[in-house]
């Protein structure tokens, strides 16, 4: 499982994987999923920009895992990759995970010492994300 936060320019602000091996595959998956995210937001954003759902849902399932997407109003994208074998994760849980992620991300943004666009190095944020991932996986 992996959680990745990408800035609006599609470079990663934060990546966390569990387990830590085989990260590369996750990274690759996230990277490819960004295209799907872009596609979703570009299509919807034309006329209904303000009504666009932040939660993008299942971007695409592969044989091994599912990728979920979430985008904020400032074009910061959250991507969660979970094992397909983990069927206990329902959509609601994913939504709540994204919500928590978004809240934590907002808290990080509130910190005046954080420059938007910098990698997120907040320990509090790390702990929240780790807790969440442990619960999910």
């Amino acid at each position, binding site marked *: 499982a992996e959680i990745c936060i990408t800035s609006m320019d599609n470079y990663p602000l934060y990546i966390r994987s569990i387990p830590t091996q085989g990260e590369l595959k996750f990274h690759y998956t996230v990277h490819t999923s960004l295209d799907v995210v872009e596609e979703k937001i570009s299509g919807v954003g034309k006329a209904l920009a303000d009504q666009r759902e932040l939660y993008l849902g299942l971007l695409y399932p592969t044989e091994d895992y599912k990728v979920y997407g979430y985008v904020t109003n400032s074009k910061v994208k959250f991507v969660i990759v979970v094992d397909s074998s983990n069927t206990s994760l329902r959509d609601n849980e994913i939504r709540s995970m994204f919500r928590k992620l978004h809240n934590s991300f*907002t*808290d*990080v*943004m*509130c*910190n*005046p*010492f*954080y420059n938007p666009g910098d990698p997120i*190095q*907040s*320990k*509090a944020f790390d*702990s929240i994300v780790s807790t969440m991932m442990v619960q999910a996986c």
Partner: protein
Amino acid sequence: MAAAQAGLPVRLESVAGELPLPVFVGITNELEMRYPNHPSTNESQPHILGSLTGSAPHPPADRPVLRHPDTSMDKQEAWSPPRSPGISPPCSPSAYRSYPYGAQRNGTDTLLAYDGKVPGRPSVPQENSSPSHYSLKLQSEQPVITRGASVERLVERAEIDYSDEPWRITEEQREYYTNQFRSLQPDLNALIMGTVAKNFFTKSKLPIPELSHIWELSDVDKDGALTFPEFCTAFHLIVARKNGYPLPETLPATLRPGFVEPGVVTVPPSEATEPLIVFDDNMMPGANQLEMGSVDLQMTSRPGVTAKQDRREESRKPEFSPKRIPDPHEKPIQRVSTLKPDSPQELDANMKSRTRPRSYSSTSMDDAMKKVEEPPTPPPRPQKTHSRASSLDLNKLFQQSGQGSRPSQHSLSAKSGWLPPPPALPPRPPATQIFSFLPSSEKSSQKAVQQPNFADFSKFREEQESSVRGGLSTEDLVPPKSDSTLRHQGHAPQKPVRRKLHPESQSATPPSATPYSAATLTKSTQRPPPKQKREIQMAIRKNRETNAVLTRLNSELQQQLKVVHRERVTLESQLELLRPVAST
């Protein structure tokens, strides 16, 4: 206890003596001081290790222990890993320090720096103390551990209390924070914006990630701004960090915004500010320990010895204040004040980082105030001077007087003769000119015509006046008017003096002219006086002149009306007479 007390006095004394003001630097210094003061570094160590109170009692015990550093070390080690570093001889503690807490190294360095400041204090002890304090803090959750080690020393007691020491905000610290907060935001109930706080805390020279972490810890409501409690927390964390204490992962209970120190006494800001600074940086760990120990001591043996320690400790540890709020606060405050002189250097170093924001803000405020006060913009002279076409600068008038003197003289003479007593226009060329114009013409056209002459006239007048003033050299220029001008000039000298006071003194244009000239002369002669004044006066004069002119015009028209009316009556009567004739 007695031993502890005995030890405490020793430590206290040393602390009192050596410790610089609680300023940031002071904190470390205190630690250092304690150590050097106390023959047994162990004393300091125990204090540091964990329990301020405990440590205090230990000093005496420590002393002997110090003699046997190994012993103490062992004890400390057994106590708890963090403790051991502190316990070990000054040298060893540092080693220990660094190793349990990588972050502490920074503290160590700072401590070392502080140590240097403290004369004769083994830097090591401080370092040790700080790390130990730090470790103590970390160990706060493990009272058992600390207790175990501290059993031998009163440290145990200190441990329990000590664990909170580094994260407790003493009265002095709070005072200092309050001042700093006020420098950024006068209203204590208001928020400090994130950017403002960022700039302020950046001055503390801590690395940005650490500041970011501190922010995360202190901004509990995550609103991007700091309330006063949050600000105190952040500041306290920064101070602790600068003193070498590693940053906690979570906010200690004592630093939560809702935490209220019992018996927090507001120390006089002056005193508190400095001590706090020093304090926070260095003393935090040491202060806590010392306070803990000193608290006990103080309670028992306040007078004298404890006084010093109390001061420091109390300043350091507001926690203990609950125990002895009234006394500690007083004492520490006193000490703090005394300490300040001792550690002005240290304070300065630390305070610079802190005071900079303060001074910065204060200076900026001062500058702002100065700026506000500075602009004493005099009324725009040109406008006033040129409110009327005739009102030209004296200089110009004088310059042109020669040119326009002739024509103006003529016109002036004509006008002057015609002009009724000048409407109380002080010697203002414009005013007089207006007078001259109006009386002579009573018609706008005339006025218009006269306007140019008016200007000349004013010049002329000025010239005359100036000549009169300057020696009547220009009188020749205006022969026709010379008489009048002379007359006026005679008035002029008077007029200038009482320019504004004699609008009526000028019955005729010449008089008005002369007053004008005189006025102008006076004006010119009185140039040295603020130009603004002149301009104002000229404007006033012009207005008066205008008023006078209009008044005269009005009276003339009234007369004409009467005349015309009479004629009408006459004609009507004639008509009536003729009618019967015609009718018949």
